[in-house]
């Protein structure tokens, strides 16, 4: 178990390295690359000034040197400096992490509490009105565009009934959190319900359930002890993988609700052509996603005794 955990954590490092490489190349090699954007953002026209700016940001060095320098800084926790404001990207990004995490985890909690039981009972009562209803709901949930759902919720709960604030972070209170997290959570709830239902149906068709029935165990006991446990293992892994879906969507929800998180910083930095900030946001978002997957994998190994660690 310990060896497995160490190996899984070590796998994390090359993955994140390749991702930094891909992102660095994307942002620095493609036409209209970071260097040119930096000039744009300062409205620099004078060739001498451009040279100066290039030197200041280290853009005059060859690409591989810049990548290695970037990695060196990264290893020390330095994400570079904003082209526009000159602030350290680390600080800018750091201030935004908590609001995003708060939003994502609240949405995930909503999804786990609603989606898993919904999928579970739908599968047990296949073809019932509960099953049909919740599966229609689930396919709608994965199809609905988040920003539209958010607009509708905003219209009903903030404009019409004036129950909740339409947007903003407030002072971090729950009232401001409800609409964004529900908007974000709906799609994930639907995904979890579908995944859980499929997993339960798979488990119900296994031999050990048939054996348990043949032994004369009560349905309640079978469902609780055999089905639920085995299903949760299946659901956990996909839930982790699908967390990326959720993290990706925070961008839209944050922008819609003027939520001061990583996603809105990312979009703003793209509009301001502030590549170091864009790069920092993307890296942090992906890292969060990878860390969650790592945690899920370790938990999975811990929960499922069948996994071989060697």
């Amino acid at each position, binding site marked *: 178990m310990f060896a497995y955990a160490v190996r899984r954590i070590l796998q994390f490092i090359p993955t994140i390295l390749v991702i930094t490489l891909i992102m660095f190349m*994307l*942002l620095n090699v493609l036409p209209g690359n970071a260097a040119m954007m930096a000039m744009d953002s300062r409205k620099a026209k004078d060739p001498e000034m451009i040279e100066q700016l290039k030197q200041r940001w280290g853009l005059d060095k060859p690409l591989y040197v810049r990548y290695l320098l970037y990695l060196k800084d990264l290893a020390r926790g330095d994400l570079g400096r904003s082209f526009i404001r000159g602030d350290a990207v680390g600080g800018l990004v750091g201030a935004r992490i908590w609001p995003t995490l708060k939003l994502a985890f609240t949405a995930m909690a909503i999804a786990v509490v609603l989606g898993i039981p919904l999928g579970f009972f739908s599968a047990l009562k296949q073809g019932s009105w509960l099953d049909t209803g919740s599966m229609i709901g689930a396919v709608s949930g994965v199809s609905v565009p988040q920003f*539209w759902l958010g607009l509708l919720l905003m219209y009903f709960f903030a*404009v019409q009934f004036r129950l909740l604030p339409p947007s903003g972070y407030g002072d971090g209170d729950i009232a401001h959190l409800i609409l964004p997290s529900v908007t974000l959570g709906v799609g994930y709830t639907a995904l979890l319900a579908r995944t859980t239902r499929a997993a339960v149906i798979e488990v119900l068709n296994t031999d050990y359930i048939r054996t348990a029935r043949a032994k004369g165990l009560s349905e309640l006991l079978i469902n609780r002890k055999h089905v639920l446990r085995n299903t949760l293992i299946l659901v956990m892994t996909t839930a982790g993988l699908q967390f990326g879906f959720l993290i*990706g969507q925070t961008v*839209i929800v944050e*922008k819609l609700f003027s939520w001061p998180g990583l996603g809105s910083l*990312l979009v703003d930095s793209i509009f301001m052509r502030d590549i170091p900030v864009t790069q920092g946001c993307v890296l942090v978002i992906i890292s969060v996603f990878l860390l969650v997957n790592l945690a899920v994998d370790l938990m999975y190994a811990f929960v499922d005794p069948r996994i071989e660690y060697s």
Partner: protein
Amino acid sequence: MKNLIRKIKGRTNLMVGGIIAAIVVVMAVFAPFLAPYHPVNDADLMFSEEPPGETFWMGTDQQGRDILSRVIYGARISLAVGLICQVLNTSIGVILGLTAGFFGKWWDDLVMGLTNIMLSIPPLIFALAIMAILGPGLVNVFLALGLTNWSFSCRITRSQVLFTRGLDYVKAAKALGYGRIRIMFTQILPNIVGPILVVATLGVADAILLEAALSFLGLGTQPPTPSWGGMLSSAREQLFTAPWISIFPGLAIFITVLGLNLFGDGLRDILDPHTTRLGKA
């Protein structure tokens, strides 16, 4: 053939999804005949923010343009994005998956490594990073989304190839002296089209949602081109005074994506009863 028709008729999701998809295609193709007004030029500030009524069934936007006409024309953008991006994604995914599964060895390791890394980047974030460099615009959306979502096609193709590779008819083709390329494209590919098609259908839905999201953020299709996501991007400011500006374009995205998802699910039930949507984010 009769069997197939019966199978299709038994699938409500396939039927409903297919009808919705057909309506969207008709809207896109015959937009100039269906739309009562021109989506861009018929702007009249005298009729700004008219609520839905007899003249304007879905109301008008802040510039007095008929929302119904813009929704009808918007089908063109969404459909084009969905199809073009998914053709790109499927081509990349199928070629990588086919060769990885068939040749194996270091190439397989490389492709699968890359696929797993792509799967660990949220699609919207990757698309945003590409848009950050290429700048806003429809053509760049094609590129960004066409390069983003190929990993699912790649994975399903590879796993199908691994399964098919050992079957007798492939061995027979080898014994007959067929070349490797010929075996890949004439023997293996036609037999694994089903699952690839399922992933592609669901991918079209994903691409439409992503384009709408990018346009909503202001990075996708640029005004005045009518795109469903773009129509919603400025709608928030009018939410208090003219909520219909928000309602109809969003409803169009929702119904289209729902239709494609239902169609994809139904297709899978028929073509590929063993796989579930597990792992498909």
